[in-house]
Every structure is written in structure tokens, then in C-alpha cells.
């Protein structure tokens, strides 16, 4: 492959270095996004060019882990897109109610806000006791924070609004305890969440599940990688299982589109055909 722009070549080599030294594979991520993150880090850390960062990534563990955090997006919210959660309650919960045991996979859970949202929703629907939520991410620091379940109270007002708009049945404040500038999520929400390190790019199927949520993760991947992750999801779902994507993510261009039935096209909820 020829590179017109030297910095494109340097970025490609840097991603290769990260993969071969540290095992994290960003080579099939959307390039404009990766470039933006790398250029930001370059400016903050005062490097003259991307090649300088490469030597640092190979020889300095601390810098490498910093860069890894830059490349991993952990922006998330509780009950992000309330209309999605409404649809989940109306259309997906009735299906889940027909199963004696329920397994849910939150792929790319970051710091866990959406997994806690799911636990709350299931508790309100009387399903949580027979559910296991596998919440996975490749970012161990984010997972550690998710496990703690401690969030800044700055966001709580927004989360409360989201929760109410999503059709929440209780007072949102009954799900956490305030402590100084933070809130601590109730222990009862954590009991059936299994937090695990899993990389969608390099790891494979680990369970057969009834429901997969992977929202605003695939937008960062190129088409090839999107297709291979879609195959992973397809192979992880039972027949009749449900796949939920982010509101701007589509299955339509995926090779597997015809294997699903649209349950809610606007909210991007799909059911695997029998």
C-alpha cells in the first residue's frame, strides 16, 4: 500500500507497534477517529511527530497505557437514549419473560453505566433474579471503575431525567447512596453482573445469550471489522435472541442483515430468525 501522506504511514506503523507489543488491535478502526486521538496525544505530550510516539509506546509502559486510554472511548450515560429503553421495556422484556434463565451480554460496557441501567430495568420488571449480565470491555481500567459502581454526582441530574423519560417506575435516588461528590450504586444491582475483560476484535464467543447490547461501539470500526463482530454476535445469540445497536448503527449493510428481523428499526433492535 502506498501512502501519500507520511503521517498516515506513521499512524499505521504506530498501530502495528501497539498491536505487536501490547496485543490491542486498532488497525481496523475508523481512521479519521484514530488520527484525531493520536494527534491530540501528540500535542498534549509534546512530540514532534508520530514516529517519536512509536518508540515511546514500545519502551514506556506508562505512556503505552495512557495512549490505550486515549484510543478507548469510555463516554457513556445511564439510560442513554431514553426512547431506546422505552422500546426495550415494551418490546424486548415480554420476550425475556418467557425464558426461565436469561443471559445478557453488554459488549463494550466501558465504565458500566448502561449495565447498571439494565439491572435497574430488570429489577423493576421482576426479572433480575433469574438473569446474568455479562458486561465486557477490553479496557481494564474502565472495567475496574464499572465494578466499583461509583459515579460522579454531577451527572445524576441528567441520569435522573433519562431514567424518568425511559419509563422508570421508581424514584431514581432509591438505586444509589450519596457519598460526598459521588453516588454508590446499590449492592443489589451488582449481584448478577459478571464483569469480564473481552476484546471484540481479538476474542471469540464465550457464551450463548438471549440478548446482546452493543451500542455506539461498532461506529468506531471499519466495515470489515464490523462484519466480523456481527458474526461474533450472531454466533453468540440463541435463535430468537435480540440484538440492540446504537441509534446510528445499522445492520442493513452487514452480510447478516437477512438473518435478522427488525423489531424496532428506529431504535435499532433486531431479532435473530429461527
Amino acid at each position, binding site marked *: 500500500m502506498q501512502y501519500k*501522506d507520511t503521517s*498516515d504511514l506513521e499512524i499505521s506503523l504506530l498501530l502495528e507497534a501497539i498491536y505487536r507489543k501490547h496485543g490491542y488491535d486498532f488497525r481496523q478502526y*475508523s*481512521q*479519521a*477517529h484514530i*488520527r*484525531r*486521538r493520536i494527534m491530540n496525544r501528540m500535542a498534549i505530550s509534546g512530540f514532534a511527530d508520530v514516529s517519536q510516539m512509536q518508540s515511546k509506546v514500545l519502551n514506556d509502559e506508562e505512556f503505552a497505557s495512557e495512549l490505550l486510554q486515549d484510543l478507548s*472511548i469510555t*463516554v457513556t450515560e445511564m439510560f442513554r437514549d431514553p426512547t431506546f429503553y422505552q422500546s426495550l421495556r415494551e418490546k424486548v422484556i415480554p420476550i425475556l419473560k418467557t425464558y426461565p434463565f436469561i443471559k445478557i451480554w453488554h459488549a463494550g460496557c466501558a465504565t458500566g453505566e448502561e449495565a447498571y441501567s439494565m439491572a435497574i430495568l430488570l429489577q423493576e420488571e421482576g426479572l433480575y433474579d433469574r438473569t446474568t449480565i455479562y458486561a465486557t470491555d477490553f479496557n481494564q481500567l474502565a472495567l475496574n471503575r464499572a465494578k466499583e459502581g461509583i459515579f460522579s454526582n454531577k451527572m445524576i441530574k441528567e441520569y435522573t431525567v433519562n431514567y424518568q423519560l425511559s419509563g422508570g417506575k421508581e424514584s431514581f435516588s432509591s438505586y444509589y447512596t450519596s457519598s460526598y461528590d459521588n453516588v454508590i450504586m446499590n449492592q443489589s444491582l451488582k449481584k448478577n453482573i459478571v464483569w469480564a475483560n473481552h476484546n471484540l476484535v481479538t476474542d471469540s464467543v464465550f457464551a450463548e445469550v438471549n440478548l446482546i447490547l452493543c451500542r*455506539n461501539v461498532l*461506529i*468506531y470500526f471499519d*466495515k470489515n471489522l464490523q462484519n466480523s463482530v456481527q458474526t461474533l454476535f450472531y454466533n453468540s445469540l440463541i435463535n430468537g435472541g435480540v440484538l440492540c445497536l*446504537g441509534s*446510528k*448503527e*445499522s445492520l442493513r*449493510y452487514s452480510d447478516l442483515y437477512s438473518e435478522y428481523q427488525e423489531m424496532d428499526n428506529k431504535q435499532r433492535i433486531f431479532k435473530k430468525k429461527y
Partner: protein
Amino acid sequence: MRYEAIVIGVSSGGMNVLKIISAALPTDFKIPIIVVQHVGAHSDSQWIQLLNEKSNLHVKEADEKEKIENGKIYFAPPNYHLLIEKDKTFSLTIDERVNFARPAIDVLFESAAEAYRNKLIGIVLTGSNNDGTKGIKRIKECGGLTIIQDPKTAESPYMPMSVLTAIEPDHILSIENIIAFLIKLK
């Protein structure tokens, strides 16, 4: 055709000028236009449909991985950053807000500058923050053409004025003259 794409950044006061611009461009206006308008996270996309109804061109929200086509006006979806890849397709991200905004003008402009280099026109219109300043500077560095709305004619002059602190734009024009300028390009 010298230019292959036009990016527009606009914030408060934007709806009025966007209505005027999208209604004024003729059917045979080929250069694709990509717009970041600051909107609330929960905004539905009704207003895009309204603009589409009044426009000779196809006005739509940008989809991720969508190929950028001539004769279309694309808008960044609410609560997502919009970026342009070098293969002239769109990417969306939910990265942190930039200049308190998502979508942010700088994010679109900087990626568009890398993708289109000197075949890009960047335009900053009315708004009351400084989003777009860094981005239009990058467009200029990459050889693109830069235009701002004449602050005297802008409902909120701060955003185009902020550009003047960073670069000397190629043109400072009223909305009417921006439209006339664009129509002459084709």
C-alpha cells in the same frame, strides 16, 4: 470543478440562515455540503425534513460509513461527532464534547481538511461560541478556501469574529453574497 466539498459550521441563529441557504441553491448545484449545526442531545431530526422539503437538493442526516455524494446537503446527527474519512465516507463518534459541543464544528472541519486538502471550502456562520476557529485554521493550512459570515450581518457575531483572531479568511460575506459566491462556483 476545483472544489469537491463544502463544510459549514453554525450555532445560535443558525436555523434561519440554513433555511435561506438550503432553499436558495439550485438543483444543479453539485458540490456536497456537510453541516454541523449545534443542537441539543435529544433533538429529533424533524428540522432536517423541513429543510429538505424547501430545498432543491437532498437534505439528510449523515449516516455512518455513508459515501458522500454530489448534490446533497448532510447534517451531523444530534449527540454525535461527524468526521470525514479519506475515502470520502462519514464516521460518527460519541467522543467527549469539544468546545462543549457534540457535534463539534472543529471535529468535522479538521477531518474534512485532512480528507479534501485544497479541494475544500470551509464556512463559519452565526454563533455565540468559538467552535470552528481551530477547524477553519486547519482548512487554511491544508490549502482550502475559507469564508466567514460578515459578523455585522450575523445574528450572533461571536463565532465568525472568533475566526478572525486565528486567520485572515479568504472572504467575509453576508449570507446573500455567500450564496451568490457558491452558485458562481459550479
